[in-house]
């Protein structure tokens, strides 16, 4: 494999992994606070259509990303109100949110089908972006890619180096204890859920503005589910989630390359590879139970009511 192909392949992997990084890291914060939101797919689609509509109507990429985040947050707010305000089942409400989001995005996007958009601008830095190999690899992406690289860093710092992060983890590990100390458990969970929604919305915006800049119904094609799996895969650690997204994206792309090389294996088996690889790696890293337990939020999915 020549250097040129290698660079190009890595670039493709980056774009395939970026939406997963956003959605999975957002969900990680949500889950760390003890809330399991299975509605990522629905929030992503709502974000995707909102982002695309914004660019279509006011042609401003920054506003489009913000609008997508806001849309993700709004759908997350419905979820949060139901599970935190009204104690509804998190698993079921999340799935209902997916059904709702798929329908809502299709409804909002009815008149957006068939419209083209050039895609987010790449950040071009004079001189550096023109460097061979390093230039395309490091200095020629759109802003969202850089944001997705910074996100795990920021989230890791927040969770393990700040007091707020400590409180968030405490709420997810033992809501009763956190409540007894006087932390506003419900308010913190609201915020964590909204953050998850915003990141899912941003992942959607990446899909409809950069990855394949257009709107078609159901365009996330199951990536919200992969993001959910990656949080578990990464054992609730931001960097492992990030690596998981690149592993998954990487194998997806490599199997396409293998097909183009003409490997004589039925394509269905090639397409299975990312899923099987994820399971195998999870088994390898899960074998030490103590390490997993320390990371998994103990109260995940459990309702909390501050009854005296």
């Amino acid at each position, binding site marked *: 494999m020549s250097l040129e192909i290698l660079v190009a392949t890595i670039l493709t992997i980056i774009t395939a992994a970026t939406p997963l990084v956003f959605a999975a890291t957002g969900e990680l914060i949500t889950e760390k606070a003890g809330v399991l939101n299975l509605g990522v797919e629905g929030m992503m689609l709502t974000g995707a259509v909102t982002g695309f509509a914004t660019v279509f109507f006011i042609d401003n990429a920054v506003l489009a990303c913000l609008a997508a985040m806001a849309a993700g947050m709004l759908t997350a707010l419905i979820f949060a109100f139901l599970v935190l305000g009204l104690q509804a089942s998190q698993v079921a409400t999340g799935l209902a949110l997916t059904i*709702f989001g798929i329908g809502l995005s299709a*409804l909002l996007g009815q008149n957006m089908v068939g419209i083209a958009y050039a895609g987010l601008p790449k950040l071009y830095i004079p001189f550096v972006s023109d460097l061979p190999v390093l230039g395309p690899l490091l200095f020629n992406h759109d802003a969202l890619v850089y944001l997705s690289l910074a996100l795990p860093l920021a989230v890791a710092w927040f969770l393990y180096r700040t007091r707020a992060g400590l409180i968030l983890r405490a709420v997810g590990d033992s809501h009763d204890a956190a409540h007894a100390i006087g932390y506003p458990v419900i308010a913190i969970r609201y915020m964590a859920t909204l953050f998850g929604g915003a990141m899912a919305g941003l992942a959607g915006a990446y899909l409809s503005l950069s990855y394949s800049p257009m709107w078609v119904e159901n365009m996330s094609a199951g990536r919200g589910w992969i993001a959910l799996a990656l949080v578990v895969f990464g054992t609730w650690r931001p960097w492992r989630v990030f690596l998981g997204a690149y592993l998954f994206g990487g194998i997806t792309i490599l199997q396409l390359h293998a097909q183009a090389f003409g490997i004589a294996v039925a394509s269905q088996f090639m397409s299975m590879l990312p*899923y099987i690889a994820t399971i195998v790696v999870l088994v390898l890293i899960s074998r030490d139970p103590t390490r997993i337990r320390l990371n998994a939020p103990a109260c995940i999915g459990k309702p909390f009511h501050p009854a005296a």
Partner: protein
Amino acid sequence: MLRLERRPQNSRTMMYLSPVFALALTLAAGVVLFSIMRVDPAEALYAFFIEPLTTTYGITELGVKATPLILIGVALAIGFRASVWNIGAEGQLTLGAIAGGGVGLALYEVEGFWVLPLMLAAAIAGGMAWAAIPAFLRTRFNANEILVSLMLTYVATLLLSYLVHGPWRDPGGFNFPESRVFHDAATLPIIVDGSRLHLGFALALFVVVATWVMISRTLIGFQVRVIGSAPRAGQYAGFSQNAIIWLTLLFGGACAGLAGVVEVAGPIGQLLPSISPGYGFTAIIVAFVGRLHPLGVLLAGLLMALSYLGGENAQISLNLPLAVTGVFQGLLLFMLLACDVLIRYRIRLRTRSAT
């Protein structure tokens, strides 16, 4: 502001009333939604909830649509009670269809009363085998069953795709991706003449009752409940958590596998690249809307099926796009899940005097 106040004990009245409230709220939300869509709300609600049930055929179709949802929902509910998160029932359903359908194809044109039972048994075994993978990896290697069962769903779907695009194609079917149509001995008998309501519906009802007996009358049911609500207490009492994980996952796999074969040997009649529009996932909602109780799941499965039939009907009668159906279904589920809060809590207006 509203405030939730915990009831000293669950309200029996509200157990029955909360779905009524939810339905009323959904109707109200529907009026708003359909008015925005410039459709007469009364006609739309009629098309959704009443019209599908105005014919015998419609009622039998409700049973056909609800069968896989009930079968899988009941089994998943047991797992969820024990906090075992099998969200890969879709994959187990697919494996059931592959195993059961595979037997049907292998015995093509073989007559005998035993063909169908053999297919059902193979499907149950297939579903269980697929569920055994997350069970084994969880109990042996501590690998999270959410991830494993979900990823295996994709693998199962691709495996089915490979089979019907390749070795299992109908030899007389111009290489199109579908298997032979199962012969009569490999097809489920119809239980209402002139309809598609098949034996699978009766099987689903049987599973509901059997599960109900199991959880309320046997030690296993008790163990599931204890492990689910207080794992440590369960361990002190000598219940094995691993055994519960195996048990609930295998039961889920068995029922999902059964659901898979009753779909292909019932209304579909052959193996196709896609045999389930996400029943394995929808059944998760059905389990919770049914409050994880077998009878509740039965009702929730029927209601969910009705909302699908209603959505189709609204497209046919009123030209409402499918997207509206999705939004309306989402609203219905939100309301049903939200109103259950009334069982355990009172809603009070927040007063300033306290604290």
